[in-house]
């Protein structure tokens, strides 16, 4: 139904935008192994996005590509965290750390969704997200405990993104009415934050004391980056409307 589709869109858009952001690292990573690892994570997320958008599309007779390439900025539902710029490797790892912790808790619960498709997607995604979370945690430790510079940069990455953490846990519109189909974001808050706290402190870093940035309805009204991301992602598809590739 439509509400489920709108829920799938929220999950799918987060995954798609983050995949898009991460893919820009390929050929630019600090070492070859990281080119491979970041591409892997981006590919996983893109895979999740494709399942979720395809599923959402069934409610409106649309394909994954219709939804990815022909929705406008205000129709996307991604959170601001995934829209933030890659920054340096520390900032990217900070974003990965926060988002994969949230996603891990989310999919752990979503495997029990009463919607069998969502449950199946979550099941497939879960072991991949476990790897993403581990990858981010390992790098957080390496950077936090590596050199003075790396600790500084990793902390700066966390500080820079922390005001977008709260948005992840807001029970926006279609979610509250979905019952056991969906996982209420607010229900993930505590365990996600405590997982983050554990890793951040283990890495000798500080959990930022920064409140959430105003505006958290995933409408894109409060983001300046989404437009740039979509402009680049959609340019070719829109130059050739109706074409197949």
């Amino acid at each position, binding site marked *: 139904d439509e509400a489920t589709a709108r829920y799938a869109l929220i999950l799918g858009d987060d995954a798609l935008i983050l995949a898009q952001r991460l893919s820009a690292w390929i050929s630019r990573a600090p070492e070859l192994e990281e080119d491979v690892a970041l591409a892997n994570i981006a590919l996983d997320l893109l895979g999740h996005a494709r399942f979720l958008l395809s599923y959402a599309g069934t409610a409106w007779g649309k394909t994954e590509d219709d939804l990815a390439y022909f929705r406008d900025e205000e129709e996307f539902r991604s959170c601001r965290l995934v829209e933030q710029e890659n920054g340096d*490797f520390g900032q990217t790892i900070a974003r990965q750390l926060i988002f994969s912790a949230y996603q891990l808790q989310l999919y752990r619960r979503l495997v029990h969704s009463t919607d069998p498709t969502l449950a199946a997607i979550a099941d497939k995604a879960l072991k991949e997200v476990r790897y993403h979370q581990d990858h981010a945690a390992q790098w957080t430790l*390496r950077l936090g405990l590596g050199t003075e510079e790396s600790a500084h940069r990793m902390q700066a990455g966390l500080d820079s993104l922390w005001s977008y953490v709260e948005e992840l846990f807001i029970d926006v519109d279609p979610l509250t009415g979905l019952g056991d189909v969906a996982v209420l974001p607010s229900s993930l808050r505590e365990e996600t934050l405590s997982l983050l706290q554990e890793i951040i402190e283990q890495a000798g870093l500080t959990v930022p004391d920064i409140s959430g940035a105003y505006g958290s309805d995933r409408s894109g009204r409060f983001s300046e980056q989404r437009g740039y991301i979509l402009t680049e992602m959609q340019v070719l598809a829109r130059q050739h409307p109706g074409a197949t590739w």
Partner: protein
Amino acid sequence: EVGQARFEELIAADSRVEPRDWMPDPYRKTLVRQVSQHAHSEIIGMQPEGNWITRAPSLKRKAILMAKVQDEAGHGLYLYSAAETLGTSRDEMLDQLYTGRAKYSSIFNYPARTWADVGAIGWLVDGAAITNQVPLCRASYGPYGRAMVRVCKEESFHQRQGWEILYSLSHGTDAQHRMAQEAVDRFYGPALQMFGPPDSDSPNSNQSMAWNIKRFSNDELRQRFVDMIVPQADALGLTLPDPHLTWNEERGHYDFGDLDWDEFFSVLKGNGPLSRQRLEHYRNARDDGAWVREAATAYARRGQQDQSALLGA
């Protein structure tokens, strides 16, 4: 003396030389140069196609392209490993690339300007690479030959994907068809030049042949490639931009026109359209990542100390 004899025996029997075996210095040097050049080509080769990941026109194509560029990083990794068995470290090889002392395939100094170029690179550039590489699976140096087996398997997959991109474009809208034809027009010549200069102009080949590293001459491989792509181009519905391309019944091969070797040598000397850009992209990434690599090293050292402390206790 014993080593020398054993080495000659291995070569004569067309067997594999392994890292523990004695080998003549020039053999080792030739291999390090060739394998690291090949690895560098994989690394630099990530750029032209990588340029289109964020703009790929469908999510499926985006996923395929991302996986392909990732494969290239992977190929780089195991080729550097193969070269390391010859006693040169990856850092040393990367440093040669960084400082511009190492070569890589000139083809990657051409831009991937349109999406169709991604198809043309897959079909023609990977196609030429495979033609070159299949015989290298039997290269006398074991780690190299084995790495090539893995590389070739994935490359033929990539060539297929490139061909499919072009096929969709060629059978799509007029604008798509035009885009595909233009890409083939641009990449045909440079792809044929990937086999290196004409045999008459290629001094190092004979020794590599004698060592069972190289199995066929540049011109032989080029011919083989042309013979392969002509029917493939037909099937694509695209034209190869060479008016002299005709079937020669007598030779049992396609004849083809002269290539622009002035361009080739100019690009080889570093004057390719994007030669500087490719190297700067690589250098910027390496510079930007220096602090990360330092942190990883410091952290690993720390781990070792912790372990020593534990063992000492």
